[in-house]
């Protein structure tokens, strides 16, 4: 297995080297003769991003989704999930500076569908569709383990306020309003004329312009973006994942698909003791009547690690605290 993986990497590297050579060779011309020996410096045309870098992004996304599915649904280990979240913040957040992101890719995909001249890359397509397919298969594992925006909010959560269910549901509609606005602005722009008053806005990528944590990942930005970032960090300490639950347009899509997923986070009735510890531990209000609400569940695995029956059933060796401590987190 290892040898095969290594040879695969070698093959990719060779392909990249070959590709860059082919693209480079076209531009070699004879240098002028000014006497003495001279050859042109290395090519001045921008070297294409090495193939392995492009595929690495997509591979990391796929790996992350796979790992998240495994950790959330099979291992049900909160600590491992936390590590995965930190890794996602490090890679997708700080290293890739938050771009390309699946949430923003809604706009690219919209624009590509609306305007056939718009060039969209394979990476963007992969970033848009892979988490959606994963949601259809195993639920919102993207939200739970991979999305850096969600991971930031999840990691800073200290003491969640319980939001009344009706308010939660009402606020959840904001996601679809935002989705509609983002699609509208990305595809057509906003042109409205009422009498003598008219508004003409060209195509804008709203999601990118109002990304709450982009200024955090880039460690720079205009003041209003930094302020929004701070608001969501502080808010996220006391309200569970406010952006994810009420604003994220991609989350809106994911929650629709998650409702009909093949496998998902479940609370099994036959093993229950009706203690309600799971519902208490869920910071996102996704457990209704002691059943996981697939659309709202953000796959954080907190319910699992607070269920005494589950820990016993899985035979997972947790410290004594896991059983005693009621996780009001």
């Amino acid at each position, binding site marked *: 297995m290892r040898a095969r993986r290594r040879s695969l990497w070698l093959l990719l590297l060779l392909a990249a080297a070959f590709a860059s050579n082919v693209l480079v060779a076209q531009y070699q011309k004879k240098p002028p003769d000014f006497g003495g020996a001279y050859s042109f410096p290395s090519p001045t045309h921008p070297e294409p991003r090495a193939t392995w870098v492009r595929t690495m992004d997509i591979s990391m996304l796929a790996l992350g989704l796979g790992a998240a599915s495994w950790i959330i649904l099979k291992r049900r280990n909160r600590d491992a999930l936390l590590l995965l979240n930190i890794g996602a913040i490090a890679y997708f957040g700080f290293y890739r500076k938050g771009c390309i992101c699946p949430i923003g890719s809604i706009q690219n995909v919209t624009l590509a569908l609306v305007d056939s001249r718009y060039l969209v890359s394979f990476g963007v397509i992969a970033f848009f569709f892979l988490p959606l397919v994963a949601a259809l298969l195993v639920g919102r594992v993207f939200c739970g383990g991979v999305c850096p925006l969600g991971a930031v909010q999840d990691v*800073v959560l200290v003491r969640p306020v319980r939001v009344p269910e009706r308010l939660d549901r009402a606020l959840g509609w904001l996601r679809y309003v935002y989705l509609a606005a983002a699609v509208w602005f990305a595809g057509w722009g906003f042109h409205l004329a009422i009498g003598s008053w008219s508004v003409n806005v060209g195509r804008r990528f709203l999601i990118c312009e109002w990304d709450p944590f982009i200024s955090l990942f880039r460690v720079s930005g205009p003041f209003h973006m930094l302020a929004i970032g701070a608001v969501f960090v502080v808010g996220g300490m006391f309200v569970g994942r406010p952006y994810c639950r009420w604003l994220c347009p991609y989350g809106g899509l994911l929650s629709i698909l998650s409702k009909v997923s093949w496998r998902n986070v479940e609370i099994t009735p036959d093993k229950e003791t009706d203690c309600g510890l799971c519902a208490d531990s869920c910071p996102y209000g996704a457990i209704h009547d002691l059943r996981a609400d697939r659309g709202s569940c953000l796959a954080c695995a907190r319910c699992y690690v607070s269920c005494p029956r589950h820990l016993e059933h899985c035979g997972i060796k947790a410290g004594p605290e896991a059983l005693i401590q009621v996780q009001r987190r």
Partner: protein
Amino acid sequence: MDANRPDSDAARAKAHTRFWRLWFAPIAAVGALATLAVGAFRVRPTPRSTPSQPVVQPPVAPTSTSPAGSGRILTMAEAQTAMPARRLPRQYVQTAQLGGVSSPDKFLKDLSGIAAGADDHVYAIGDGEVRVFDAALVRLRSWRAPEGAACLAVGPDGRVYVGSSGRVDVFDPAGVHVQTLTVGEKDKPAAVTAIKVFRGELLVADANVRLIRRLGADGAARGMVGHLGKTGRFMLPNGSLDLAIDAGGLVYATDTGRHQVTTWTLDGAPIGKFGKFGMRNPEDFVGCCNPVNLALTPDGKVVTGEKMVARVKVFEPDGTLLAVIGPEHFDPACVHIHLDVDSHGRILAADPVRRVVTVFSLAPSRPPGEPA
């Protein structure tokens, strides 16, 4: 409960879990806020206060009246007034124009060469043809020029020589193609940028080898002009070499990279040179590579054409400045000003951007001391 684990281990595990469960989130939150604070103080590049010009303009400041030596390029008027002890000896005025917007002979696509022939006829290459005009700029005849024609010359017998990459096409005075001379080697065709005819021989400027080729009438190579020392040749950063030859057989050539006009014998022996780089004095050549064009008057004065500050200057053969035909006559985007002089000393300047040939004549001279 795991009965095997001793109590101290349980206590440590409990503290460990407590740290992670209790403290990790606030620490992460504080870290995130701190990162945002760092981001707030990171210096972002700010737009410059002065708006940049959207269109490229050569660095000429024509309207201010500060004295010479202030660091700007002087216009003709300033050149005359800035050196109070001396006025430029010659003035040239525009007397005619060929190919202007309202002219029936206007050049629609390009204008790449000009030459003066016998009887002061004007020969021009542009729009894929060679056009012949008489002294009053009335079109006489025209014929198709070869592909990629870059320059032309007229012999004393009226034969027209048109230079393109790797060859010179010869036409008789009526425009009938006589022969094609191959210039340069097969793997390195000559970049012919100028041609002059002298006593049955052709002098062809080759910008590829950076030398002037001396060819017989049949195209046979007779020698090279322009070797300086072992490997020195003309420095041509913009790939253009212009030449002229006077009645005595002295070859004048532009060494644009060195900002010089150089003179040579027909055998290739260097005689002299004049000119240097400078942005302030009008007798200096501006920018990175000037002069780009060259011609000789019948009385042996040297006419040069420059780019960046598009102007034509007239010098004595020793480099003394005689006249400046200022940038107001030419388009600032000119990369060449093709030049030739007819037998009456009228300067023919072809502006390839505006596609206009302007004729400048010597103004009647005034005694010194009288106002302009």
